């Protein structure tokens, strides 16, 4: 059954369609309709998956298919999904639709812009469905150059610097990842890239440790893990709105997914032994990200640093290695993906009108552009973890999961992470207070028009996602429950604790 390949074929068709058309408006519509069909397809596959699961199918991954690519090197184009990859795919599809809607007003080199956006989404879909490590790496790398060009060609501010920094740091991460998966290829003795086959092997602990550090750090660079987070603030703030949404919403999740699926799942012994390193880095990222956000005046820098902090929760959840923490990490990935996309989208909408992103230069946005202001407030509240929004449930799950680990070290890390919520509240409320509430400071702002239909639909879609997870988190947890159990059992079987 190859329905998963549709997830790749559709973006390819969309991209080719974009290349063949000349008129800008047609290009936008092709991109939009392609992404909407993709979202529908993703929902359809999820529904099918759920129906199969409730019918009692128990294989770890469904919809498997495999095609020979480079047979002498054991590289097969194999794909399969489980609940975790499905929720990531759903999240990606949502963010892509919203991203395309938000970029409706791009006038400069429309064709190239949407082509690169679709290519970027293609790489994310490919990454989430592939089960062959080489193919996975192929898709991980595929995203680097579109990001570089998107920031460089359509960005603002110090775009050349940011684009180059991002490309080089991500390349550094992928070099580490590649060395890691090369190690996995030879480590088990059987020479295979296949995720599920490697999962059955017993790799010596010494090898595991080296590979774990390589892989976790490598993927960590993509998640903006401390101390490799420096590409994120510059990259996010220079990127055009849609690219920021993709970067923070999707690309950072590729790293988190890799940390979970490759580094932790395939190397359980090393994860048990060495995950404390990443608990430390995650705690630093959470605290440091939060305090760094407080110092920012530029809204995009603010959200970028807060993303560093929020993705710290993902790393923390994965490194804590309890079932609830793993579940929380996955939920946080999805939640942060949607939430940060909404945040960047509303910042972008404000910037398009005011041409400034400095919080103290703005003011009274709620009066002038009530819709955009509301979207901004909702994403802010979700970010600080207000109950009812997705941020609350996912962060809560991570904390509960982390608390299950006893011992002073784990407790301290958990408490520090919890404490960051307070800091988050400070900077979010301050940003909202400066930029959204208050009186209109600049007379120019009185001329602003509220969101267009495209912007409205994008925001509504993302808010729907936030509320759905926030109010009915069981939908998400049920979908991924079996898979986090699989991963946890593999970790558990190793130690027997």
């Amino acid at each position, binding site marked *: 059954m190859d329905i998963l390949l549709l997830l790749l074929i559709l973006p390819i068709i969309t991209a080719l369609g974009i290349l063949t058309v000349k008129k800008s408006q047609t290009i936008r519509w092709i991109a939009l309709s392609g992404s909407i069909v993709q979202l529908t397809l993703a929902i359809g596959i999820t529904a099918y998956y759920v129906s199969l699961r409730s019918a009692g199918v128990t294989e770890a991954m469904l919809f498997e298919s495999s095609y020979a*690519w*480079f047979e002498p090197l054991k590289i097969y184009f194999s794909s399969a999904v489980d609940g975790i990859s499905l929720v990531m795919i759903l999240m990606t599809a949502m963010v892509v639709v919203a991203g395309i809607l938000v970029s409706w007003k791009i006038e400069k080199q429309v064709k190239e812009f949407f082509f690169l956006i679709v290519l970027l989404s293609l790489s994310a879909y490919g990454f989430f469905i592939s089960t062959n490590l080489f193919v996975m790496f192929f898709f991980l790398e595929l995203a680097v150059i579109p990001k570089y*060009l998107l920031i460089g060609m359509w960005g603002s501010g110090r*775009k050349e610097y940011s684009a*180059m920094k991002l490309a080089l740091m991500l390349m*550094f991460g992928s070099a580490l990842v*590649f060395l890691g998966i*090369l190690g996995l290829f030879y480590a088990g003795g059987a020479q295979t890239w296949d995720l599920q086959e490697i999962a059955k092997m017993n790799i010596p602990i010494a090898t595991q440790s080296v590979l774990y550090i390589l892989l976790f750090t490598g993927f960590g660079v993509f998640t903006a893990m401390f101390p490799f987070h420096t590409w994120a603030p510059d990259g996010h703030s220079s990127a055009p709105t849609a690219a920021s949404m993709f970067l923070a919403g999707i690309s950072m999740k590729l790293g988190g997914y890799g940390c979970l699926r490759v580094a932790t799942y395939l190397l359980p012994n090393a994860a048990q032994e060495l995950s404390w390193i990443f608990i430390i880095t995650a705690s630093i990222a959470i605290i440091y990200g939060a305090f760094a956000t407080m110092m920012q005046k530029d809204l995009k820098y603010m959200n970028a640093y807060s993303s560093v902090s929020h993705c710290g929760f993902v790393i923390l959840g994965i490194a804590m290695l309890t079932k609830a923490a793993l579940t929380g990490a996955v939920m946080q990935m999805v939640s942060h993906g949607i939430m940060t996309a909404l945040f960047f989208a509303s910042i972008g909408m404000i910037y398009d009108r005011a041409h400034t992103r400095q919080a103290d230069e703005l003011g009274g946005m709620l009066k002038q552009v009530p819709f955009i202001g509301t979207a901004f407030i909702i994403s802010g509240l979700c970010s600080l973890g207000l109950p009812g929004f997705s941020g609350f449930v996912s962060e809560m799950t991570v904390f509960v999961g982390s608390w299950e680990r006893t011992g002073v070290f784990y407790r301290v890390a958990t408490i520090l992470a919890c404490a960051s919520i307070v800091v988050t509240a400070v900077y979010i409320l301050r940003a909202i207070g400066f930029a959204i509430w208050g009186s209109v400071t600049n007379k120019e702002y009185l001329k602003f028009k509220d969101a267009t239909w495209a912007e409205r639909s994008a925001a509504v879609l993302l808010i729907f996602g936030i509320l759905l997870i926030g109010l009915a988190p069981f939908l998400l947890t049920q979908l991924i429950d079996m898979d986090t159990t699989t991963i946890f059992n593999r970790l558990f079987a190793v130690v027997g604790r």
Partner: protein
Amino acid sequence: MFRFEIIVAALILALLVMSLCDFDTKIKPFLNTVNVLLLLNFLIGWLPLTEGSYFSDFFRTNGLIVFQKNIMNLGIFLISLTSYTWLSQSKQRLEFYLLMLSSIFGVYVMLSSGHILMLYLGLEMSTIPIAAMSNFNLKQKRSSEAGIKLILSSAFSTGIMLFGISLLYGAVGNLSFASVIANLHPNTLTLFAFSFILAGFAFKMSIVPFHLWTADVYEGSPIAVTNFLSVISKGSVIFVFLTVLYTLFGGMKEAWLLSISIVSILSMTIGNLFALRQQNAKRFLAFSSIAQVGFVLVGVAGASTTGSTSVVYFVLIYLLSNIAAFGVIGAVADTTGSESLQSFKGLYKSNPFYALIMAVALFSLAGVPPIAGFFGKLFLLTAGMKSGLYVLLGFAGVNLVLSLYNYLRVVKYMFIDETETPLAPLDRNRALTIALYVCLIGLIIIGFVTPIYQYIDSLCGI
């Protein structure tokens, strides 16, 4: 069996006859005829050929050698197409083809050699004509400098290599490949012989620390010749080097793994570091090609079928990428007269076609998916990992990042930078366009058409 050599000899004769009839002064018909002949030469190369060895093993041929010769045929065909404009302006177009074909004749002899003397002969025959070719811009001092530098350094390296060969003869007593393989034992004498021979090859492949001639010669030579130097002469020597290491010195694997790793690390790192600040496009590609050879050596260090497959596969991709890059540089230089990377600023706005081709070529060299170079480079690393050379692999990883910076710098000039003096749209002649399209299509599909890799693998497996 000798079909390749006979055809090239016939082509050389045909060119001489053409010059007797003054046909070469009719620019367009002449160039078109030669291009068609080269295309035919390439196509005929794929006809089946009897394998075996002749002249008491001096000359041998097998599937892999035929494939390597075909790659070279493709290379000279594309180079001839990309240098169309330059050749139609230059007076020495006949000599260019004569010397190029003589050099390629040497390459064939070298590839087919089954005896070290034959190999030496082929190597020399392939190098000396290039020295004359690089001197083609007669009015430029740089060009003569390039010619002299090439001939001197190649003579020097040949001397070193001959010394190594004579030591090897002393140790083994016979220079045919078969008897060397049978009688080679690792001892001090053979180790010396090996190091001298390695140094000789290192000169030809411009491996650090024997690379000092490369940048100057590349810069001084006409672009077509630089192109030939960087793909044909380098690629063919890599092929031969592979045979020499894997079969001739196969018994001394322990010894050469270490030396290959060291020169590989040096080549990658120094090539990339020196490329960082180059402003001349040809010097830039010179250092980039030094780094690329460093990567090839990672694959060579794999010392297995995977190693040789990935090296041959990579050379094919490298050939297409470099020819495309030089093609674009040539097109820009023909119009502006400048070979500076600065003249690429804003290229995408004025000449999207050239900019895209250049970007694909550079991405391929940098190893970015979905361009073929990604697969080529990663397979080299995969092969290298087989020997468990972790330090080497670590350096290769660092160099992936460094080289990405180098190539992105040029991409930035073309796509991102704004300029007040953009290039006017460049003229596109048909020959160059065809060549660039061939390279583009090749670079995009080679990674996805699986039979290509499998075919090379089956050839190397024998």
